[in-house]
């Protein structure tokens, strides 16, 4: 009986907590739809969504990483490197010297290869962090430089343009990921975001693996004593983050129909901000995908909204900074509220 009401309370508090960012989002939407005439049109919102897709997907991988108590600064560089790999494969194919042949892969193959490489790059982060006990911040700071260097070295700094592919080589259709889906006006990127979000959400809350991720973030030692393979969980989490980054690299490259080695520079900060705005705690153990996606939308709406209002670059920086801090402060308040409610609940049934 009492149990019921209490769990009720908790659900309420949880939804409040999740709702929090959502409320901020609504407020922003209302504000900008007043400030910029065409902001509240289907088209404009789809455009926002399209931009959100990029760091939204990054933020989902980042959420997993932060939940385990880590951080991944290398995602931006993986985006750049993945883009260059995909672009290179389409434009130059893969030349095997010893056989004197050049292989051209179909676009799906290119995507798969790129995604796998991205995952591997992530796995390297995970291994450096778990096996060599390097602090995540430092490990991924290092790989951030390294991957970025490689992205540039791939083409010696040049851009791979005209990624439309050639009929003859059977590798056309790469623009797909940057365009809208068939008849619908929905950008493919947004759909990918949706798919990844759903899968990641279920994985986190509905599968043993998700539990293990949360447990590692909550109490690593205890997780180990419970027989959870902490290192393996962490490596998977960074692998996933690398995979997400590669996907983003593909979408971004496809949007521009050209691959530029500097793509993704500093995007990691957007991703982290989105995750934290979504209620993920830097201390680890706490976070949910839904919140992260909403957080990503908050950032997206601010960016595009301000641009459409003609706010200058400099003020945009200031406002972005303020929003991040304020949102987290609100989050703090809500957390305390929730803790109180939980206590209340507990004492009721004493």
């Amino acid at each position, binding site marked *: 009986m009492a149990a019921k009401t209490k769990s009720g309370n908790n659900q309420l508090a949880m939804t409040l907590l999740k709702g929090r960012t959502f409320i901020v989002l609504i407020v922003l939407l209302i504000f900008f739809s007043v400030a910029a005439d065409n902001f509240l049109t289907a088209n404009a919102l789809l455009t926002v969504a399209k931009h959100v897709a990029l760091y939204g997907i990054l933020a989902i991988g980042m959420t997993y990483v932060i939940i385990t108590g880590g951080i991944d600064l290398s995602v931006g560089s993986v985006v750049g490197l993945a883009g260059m790999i995909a672009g290179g494969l389409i434009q130059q194919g893969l030349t095997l010297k010893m056989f004197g042949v050049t292989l051209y892969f179909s676009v799906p193959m290119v995507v798969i290869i790129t995604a796998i490489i991205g995952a591997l790059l992530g796995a390297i982060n995970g291994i450096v962090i778990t096996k060599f006990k390097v602090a995540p911040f430092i490990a991924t700071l290092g790989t951030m430089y390294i991957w970025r260097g490689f992205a540039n070295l791939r083409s010696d700094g040049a851009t791979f343009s005209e990624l439309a592919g050639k009929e003859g080589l059977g590798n056309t259709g790469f623009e797909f990921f940057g365009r809208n889906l068939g008849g619908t006006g929905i950008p493919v990127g947004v759909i990918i975001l949706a798919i990844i979000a759903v899968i990641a959400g279920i994985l986190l809350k509905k599968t043993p693996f998700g539990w293990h991720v949360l447990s590692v973030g909550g109490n690593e030692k205890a997780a180990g004593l419970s027989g959870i393979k902490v290192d393996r969980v962490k490596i998977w989490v960074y692998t996933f983050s690398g995979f997400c980054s590669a996907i983003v690299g593909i979408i971004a490259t496809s949007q521009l129909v050209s691959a530029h080695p*500097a*793509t993704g520079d500093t995007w990691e900060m957007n991703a982290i901000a989105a995750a934290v705005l979504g209620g993920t705690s830097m201390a680890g153990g706490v976070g949910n995908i839904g919140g992260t996606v909403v957080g990503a939308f908050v950032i997206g709406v601010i960016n*595009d909204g301000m*641009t459409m209002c003609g706010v200058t670059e400099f003020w945009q920086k200031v406002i972005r900074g303020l929003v991040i801090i304020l949102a987290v402060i609100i989050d703090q308040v809500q957390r305390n509220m929730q803790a109180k409610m939980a206590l209340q609940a507990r004492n009721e049934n004493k």
Partner: protein
Amino acid sequence: STEGDASAETTQAAEETTEETAEEAEVLPGGGSNIIYVITPSVSNPAFKTEADTATAKAEELGYEVKAASHDDDPTKQTELFDNAIADKAAAIICDNAGADATVEAVRKAREAGIPTFLIDREINEEGVAISQIVANNYQGAKAIAEKWVEAMGEKGKYAELLGKESDTNAGVRSSAFHEVIDQYPDLEMVAQQTANWEKTEAYEKMEAIIQANPDLDGVICGNDTMLEGVCAALAAHDMTLPVIGVDGSDEAAALIKSGQATGTALQQFALIAEMAVEQADQYLKEGTTGQEEKQLVDCIAITADNVDNLQTFVYTEK
């Protein structure tokens, strides 16, 4: 070579002015080694890559050892690179600088160390410090291409402007040149002005947002070609083709002009400029003079569908 001819023209242009200028005061011997430092912005931009590569090639051809480095548009890093050059007893420095004001001090320090500096592409706000300032005439170039754009616009319509890094001189120069032309036509109305920091993805996203705010947009002007690429990609994504111009003359831009997605760009003859700089450095080190004015303007060439075929990796060859 045809490039030679091109340089010949401009040098003639310069010589006419040289007559009334006095000889260089004291001659800088160089640092001692025969190393030439080539300092440019990040070579992940094709323009600067061409610049760096041509300069390197030419200098090595003339028997110098070359050390190329990038300052990433960070004036502090640039001074550090100048310091390295000085410590390395460089014979000369070729530099595409990171800020008209922020560079003066670095060049002066090199001068004090007896190392001559030859500035390329962008000028600095002081004369008599560098030996040569071989400057791409952004102003003239931007105006020239703006004229073409106005034609393409039919002298009327709503347009948006994407600016380069606000803290970069060229961003300002190009923008004001654009407006000097465009503002003469009252029917051309600027409905949005945003900076995209010379950057492609940023240009793409900003452009999409601007399109949403102004669905009835008629044209776009961009501070450089990287942003032009982003803009064209954004327009393509919305099945739009508008008159779009940029500045630089990159092959990517050329491709877009060919395909009719972009109207034009102002070619800065990076290769030519770099080569001139190295030649003058060599001559100066050997003879104590470049035989040129310090400030030499190399005109930009307005590239449109008509003459785009003559453009190849920043080299313009009359066919």
